[in-house]
């Protein structure tokens, strides 16, 4: 727990071990299918547009979290400024399509890629830092982005934000929650599939080696800086894409989307759901997006209740929800086969 030793101890070692590889591979397709089934079946319980709205927001947050989880859970880094990438993606697409009249799909893709470039440029010096210094640096970057977005009102509309044109796909304007649900569902499946692929690729294995012990990994010839930067950029791309999608869905964007609090919310979702678990990120996003909607019944007690839930969950399930539950089920199954 002391940062005297290797500081990539920022995230607990929740990576699957060699003997568990069979489980991991089948989880990939099985989990993806389960997610697809859930997304397809969910409309049965979504009775009105408000329910769809919550589901869409869950999906969008999940996309960001899946990317952020790659950075925090698998690569063992931390970012307290990821909301900055999210907001830059959203504002980028808003400005390109709203102010400059670019077709919205083009502006979305361009903005996302542009943020990727920014992440590359910014990531090179930043990722040389470790632990709390990295946290502070990412925090600072996020705050700077949010200040610039709020101040440069000629471009961004200032603190009250700007409106964003709706997304148009091949001439068809995407209106309505049901259509958007489908779009976000597909985007989420794509994001999860990409993340799973990355984790099982040689790059992903290098990442996990790095997380385990950076020194050992470098001794084996793994270029730490390059891999960390790659994950950083990928997670920024996920965030920017989700930010752009959200901007077009909501029809507006405000600088609050780049705030420190938003970055913290994203990190909480990842940690809560379970670090180093792609599906954990989805679960974390789902729980923490819907929880405030449920807690409105508590009115004045809402903030307190939210804080208490956070503390209690992490004290009792320090690895996050999904890994802890998964471990319990694996143990039960392994006990039946006489392993471990």
């Amino acid at each position: 727990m002391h940062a005297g030793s290797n500081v990539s101890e920022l995230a607990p070692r929740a990576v699957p071990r060699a003997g568990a590889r069979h489980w991991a591979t089948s989880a990939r397709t099985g989990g993806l299918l389960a997610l697809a089934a859930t997304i397809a079946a969910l409309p049965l319980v979504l009775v009105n547009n408000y329910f769809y709205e919550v589901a869409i927001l869950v999906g969008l947050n999940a996309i960001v979290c899946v990317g952020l989880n790659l950075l925090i859970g698998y690569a063992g880094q931390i970012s307290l400024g990821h909301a900055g990438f999210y907001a830059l993606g959203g504002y980028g697409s808003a400005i390109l399509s709203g102010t400059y009249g670019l077709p919205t799909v083009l502006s979305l893709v361009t903005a996302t890629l542009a943020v990727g470039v920014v992440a590359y440029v910014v990531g090179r010096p930043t990722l040389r830092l470790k632990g709390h210094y990295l946290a502070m640096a990412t925090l600072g970057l996020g705050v700077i982005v949010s200040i610039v977005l709020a101040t440069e009102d000629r471009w961004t509309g200032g603190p009250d934000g700007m409106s964003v044109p709706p997304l148009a796909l091949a001439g068809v304007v995407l209106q309505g929650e049901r259509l958007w649900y489908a779009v976000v569902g597909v985007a989420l499946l794509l994001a999860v599939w990409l993340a799973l692929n990355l984790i099982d690729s040689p790059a992903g294995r290098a990442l996990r080696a790095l997380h385990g012990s950076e020194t050992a990994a470098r001794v084996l010839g793994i270029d730490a800086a390059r891999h960390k930067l790659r994950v950083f950029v990928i997670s920024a791309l996920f965030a920017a894409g989700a930010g752009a999608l959200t901007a077009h869905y909501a029809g507006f964007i405000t600088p609050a989307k780049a705030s420190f609090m938003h970055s913290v919310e994203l990190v909480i979702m990842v940690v809560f759901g379970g670090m180093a678990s792609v599906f954990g990120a989805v679960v974390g996003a789902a729980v923490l997006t819907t929880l405030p909607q449920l807690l409105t019944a508590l009115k004045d007690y809402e903030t307190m209740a939210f804080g208490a839930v956070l503390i209690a969950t992490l004290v009792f399930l320090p690895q996050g929800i999904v890994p802890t539950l998964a471990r319990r089920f694996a143990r039960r199954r392994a006990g039946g086969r006489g392993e471990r």
Partner: protein
Amino acid sequence: MGPRSSIGAVGRGVAAALATLLIGGGAAAQEPIRIGTFLSVTGPASFLGDPELKTLELYVERLNAAGGVLGRKLQLIAYDDAGDAEKARTFAKRLLEQDKVDALVGGSTTGTTMAVVPLAEGASVPFVSLAGAVVIVEPVKKWVFKTPHTDRMACEKIFVDMKSRGFTKAALISGSGGFDKSMRAECLKVAGQRGVEIVADETYGASDTDMTPQLTKIRASGAQAVLNAGFGQGPAIVTRNHRQVGLTQPLYQSHGVASKEYIKLSGPAAEGVRLPAAAVLVGDLLPADDVQKAVVVGYRDSYEGKYKSEISTFGGHAYDGLMLVVGAMKSAGSTDKAKVRDALEATKGYVGTGGVVNMSATDHMGLDLSAFRMLEVKNGTWALVP
């Protein structure tokens, strides 16, 4: 087989539980008239949302005690958006789709209001906003109305007062929030028309605690008066710093700080500060024949009687919003949304805490410059400037 389907099962179970919880909350009886509100009860605009919510709750209770509206009880469904525009949007959707409200009265800030405008327009539901910026009703939107005076009116009132005291050069100092920026832009626009030149334009951050640098620069600018377009705690700090730095030029504040809180926070430095505000703050000082006197004193007595804390103009705006909607329902004789909207637009001569309201197809706010009174802080309390 272990984890994967259990994850799916957990997911499905959560969705089902969610649905029950959320539907259970919304399946109220069809009988009551539902008024939906989303307010910034917590967060940076909480001093707006908190009295607004309290006012709405108080008067819904009173109206129900007096027999309700059109023979039906009123039901207030309230959500706290904490000043976040996206949360406001989600809650507005909830109010419209899930809680199926008959009208919306809410939106403490311009940001949260503007996020909800497309939803109200799309759902064809009357929406009375409690926020300040002129952009809410200009250009006029069919279903959107507002009760507070616009920031442009505040600027004009202040400049008129400055001219009457012989000031032609003013310094502007404003914060970084939406209200501040909007009012600053309006003031810059109308200053010239009112014969005042802006010789300095300083800004501060919303959570800044020391504005002496900016005021020091203003001291050197040759301004004859200082106008602080802001709300929250910033203006109180500006007021104190203004005294501390030794500025003798008179200080004007915006209607955003029209509450006793501001005087308390600013301490003795508030003496002599002027600001435009609705008559609701000075009920006792109004002459007996003032058309607003009864309404204003009545509101103050009810609110302070129940909550034991002082009124503000913001709660007053909520009162006006609610009464306008209720009045429109009564005059339309139904809660049919289109009829209520038409009745709202036809409001004439409604006497509220903010002034006398006369709406029209081109004016969805209905107040003019006379609805603003110029107040000055004297001996730690408000005084009317004749």
